[in-house]
């Protein structure tokens, strides 16, 4: 039966960790040589043992991504806890504070990592490879490191767009206020999804933090919106099926959906926003060396290129090319997205939005 098996694996894992800890004191030459074989490793501590990774990455990314990490660090066993819902993982890490079960929290917008860092639940680490990453993609003291980017785009259903809207994709967000879109748009619910909130914040930055103008836009847009959908991927499905015609959503996910043969297309309205996907080390980790190795590895060129291939997301490294059909972050007209301000004002802005649209 499974529980017995669990205990056995658990004890085995415990043994490995103990051995690794012992090695840590002695700094054995074998471990150092293993680290040296990796393209990325710059840490002096031996990297071995087991790490537990809470991953908010897509199902399709997890296996290959951590498989590649294991190839780079063959002595590390990675136990991945896959849950493509960063909010739940963040909550798990909070509730487990008394006895942390995770070593690494990977994936999900930095907005999910930042509060954990502020609550003292993350271990600061400035990875050697972080020197290649722009300052706006990482936390200054190393509490979290941004390793991928996602741009907010627009998905439209081909058939219905050509029949009902003259095949006119929005060039700007203001185009969505046209009455012809009435009842044909959906939006990830700003209160329930990170994407929906980033959409509101984007509008505020687009109007140079003039909140009144941004709320006026959201109010007019509200008149055209048929549904606020509970999850960002759930909104994509509705467009795939042609239940509705269009939806602001993550460009990388839209590309992935298109790749599956769905009759949809991606466009990027100007002045759009973006997310920074982060990785962080959970305080209380039992294997700091391996956790640091994973953080450092995830911002290598190799890991960045692999993630682009697997998820269509961009990399925070400038030397990694974006996925085919996906715009480069520097080629898109982005708003001046003040991440800290957006995080700090979130509750207030959402309440303001709720009052504005009367929800």
């Amino acid at each position: 039966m499974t529980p017995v098996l669990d205990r056995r694996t658990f004890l085995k894992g415990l043994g490995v960790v103990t051995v690794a800890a012992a090695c840590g004191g002695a700094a054995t030459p074998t471990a150092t040589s293993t680290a040296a074989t990796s393209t990325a490793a710059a840490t002096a501590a031996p990297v071995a043992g087991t790490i537990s990774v809470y991953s908010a990455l897509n199902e399709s990314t997890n296996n290959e991504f951590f498989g590649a990490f294991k190839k780079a660090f063959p002595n590390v066993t990675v136990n991945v806890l896959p849950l493509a819902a960063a909010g739940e993982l963040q909550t798990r890490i909070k509730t487990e504070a008394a006895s942390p079960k995770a070593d690494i929290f990977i994936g999900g917008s930095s907005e999910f990592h930042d509060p954990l860092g502020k609550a003292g639940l993350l271990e600061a680490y400035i990875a050697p490879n972080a020197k290649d990453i722009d300052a706006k993609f990482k936390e200054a003291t190393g509490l979290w490191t941004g390793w991928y980017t996602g741009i907010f785009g627009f998905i439209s259903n081909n058939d219905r767009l050509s029949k009902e809207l003259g095949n006119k994709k929005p060039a700007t967000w203001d185009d969505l206020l046209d009455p012809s879109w009435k009842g044909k748009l959906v939006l990830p619910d700003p209160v329930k999804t990170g994407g929906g909130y980033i959409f509101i914040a984007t509008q505020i930055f687009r109007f140079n933090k003039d909140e009144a103008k941004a709320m006026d836009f959201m109010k007019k847009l509200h008149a055209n919106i048929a549904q606020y959908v509970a999850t960002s991927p759930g909104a994509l499905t509705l467009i795939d099926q042609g239940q509705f015609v269009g939806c602001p959503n993550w460009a990388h996910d839209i590309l992935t959906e298109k790749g599956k043969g769905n009759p949809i297309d991606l466009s990027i309205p100007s002045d759009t926003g973006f997310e920074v996907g982060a990785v962080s080390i959970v305080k209380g980790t039992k294997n700091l060396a391996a956790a640091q190795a994973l953080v450092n590895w995830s911002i290598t060129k190799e890991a960045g290129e692999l993630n682009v291939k697997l998820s269509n997301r961009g990399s925070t490294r400038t030397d990694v090319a974006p996925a085919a059909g996906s715009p480069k972050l520097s080629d898109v007209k982005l708003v001046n997205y003040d991440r800290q301000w957006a995080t700090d004002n979130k509750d207030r802005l959402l309440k303001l939005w709720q009052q504005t649209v009367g929800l």
Partner: protein
Amino acid sequence: MRSLQREPGVLLALLAVIALVAVFIVYPQLRVIATPGAGYVDFITGGTWVRSTWQSIQVMVLSTTTAVLLGFVFAYGMVYTNMPWKRFFRVIGILPLLSPPFVVAAAYVILFGPRGLISYGIFGQTLNIFGLGGIWGVQTIAFFPFAYQLIADVLTRSDARLEQAARNLGAGPWQVFRSVTLPLSRPGLGAAILTTAIYVLEDFGNPALIGGTYTVLPTQAYGLISGFGDLPGATAVSTLLLGLALVLYVAKIRLDGGRSFVTVSGRASSMPRPPVPVALTWTCFIACLMLSVVIITVYGSLLVSALTLNFPTVLTPTMQHFEYITTGTNGTALQNTLVFGLAAATFSAGFALLAGWLVERGAWRGRRVLDFLLIMPAAIPGLFFGIGYATAFNEPWLDWLDRGVLIIISMIFWNIPVGYQAAVAGLRQIDRTMDEAATSLGASSLRGFRDVIVPMLGGSLRVGFVTTFVRAVTTLSVVIFLFTPSSTVATIRIFQLVNDLNFGRATAFTVADIGLAIMALSIMAVLARGRIALGAARA
């Protein structure tokens, strides 16, 4: 039951039940409610909960009414009439319980959405199922099985002699139904209404997927956690839900009053029920059939999706989704699901029966408190039950505790209410003289419970087992904060696949999960036959 002092066995059992309830129901919830943070007060004063509370109540009243009505028709048809296809209907009556709501709700959208295959594809109608109407419809079908199970259990035990007597005295079929059958099934009906209402109140999956902007308390709580990591605000919502459940509970106690619903007395009855008019039989049959058509369509679409590349846009047949679910940790997840579900169901049903007997037959003070505490878990959204366990039992000194075991324990206590309600409703129909006969012949109360009451409550035991099993197999929210890579379950995998927009694999997983669960239940039914005669043979 004699006084507790004279029966140390009963006293010990009672203390054990109280201790378990305190540790595994009360303590974790106190930890949740006591979550530190200013967010709690801010949230209450912020007032965003007023609208969701009102909407929660609205949807609860609507869905409970229709679900219980439908459950009653189904149960009446199954127990009283000799309509055909009962075996088929029995499976239909459990199917909606066997699947994670987030997959089924997605199927409703595909079939009945604005461009739904049926609503638009066949009838050319642009339906807006998002919102109150959609939640109402989907919840009615999702929750009628609870009402059906509880009511059928009670109807089975109602005494045919009373009905025959009424008929002999000249009452028509309708009058018998109204003045004998209906009043005598009140404990079951009350339990069914209370349970359904609380489950509707707590339902998250359906409102989340088709609620649209119609926010109810559980979706608001989920949004607070999922979108913002606002645990204090979310626990405030959970507390509100518990408050509403308490109100419902008190209302039910008031309604029940102190009446007697005894229908099973000392002498056995082998009298057949008076025949039901043919027209009524066929009305029941047609109602059950129509419901079956809807359910078959929805579940059929899951099967089609599992067997095609990218339902509903790319309909090329494929087996690759089923091949996928046998790879990697997916097999482990299916196996865990069954093991956890069966273990939890066995313990939960037994525990519920024992607790039901102690509360219903006992004369000790504070019974009502224990009674409420055993119904309360139904009102705790799984999310908070899971968070409670994750907070309360994630201490360094408890690290030796296997997570699989913890998940089983959480499922046992989260799912107590239905089995417990069934046990209490059943006991209220069994004359106390039955217990007394055993004790006056020299048996201890516990022995009387084991040898006399348990065999007669086979049906209630079965209800407890089945509901705990199906809820354990389909729950996502309780497990999401507890699972580890080696103790992952099918719903976690399905959730992951849905979020990854792989509906094909998600539905294949769902179909396999439902299939295995039905197999497990059938095997259990065969094993139980003869031993739990009442449960297996009737309803």
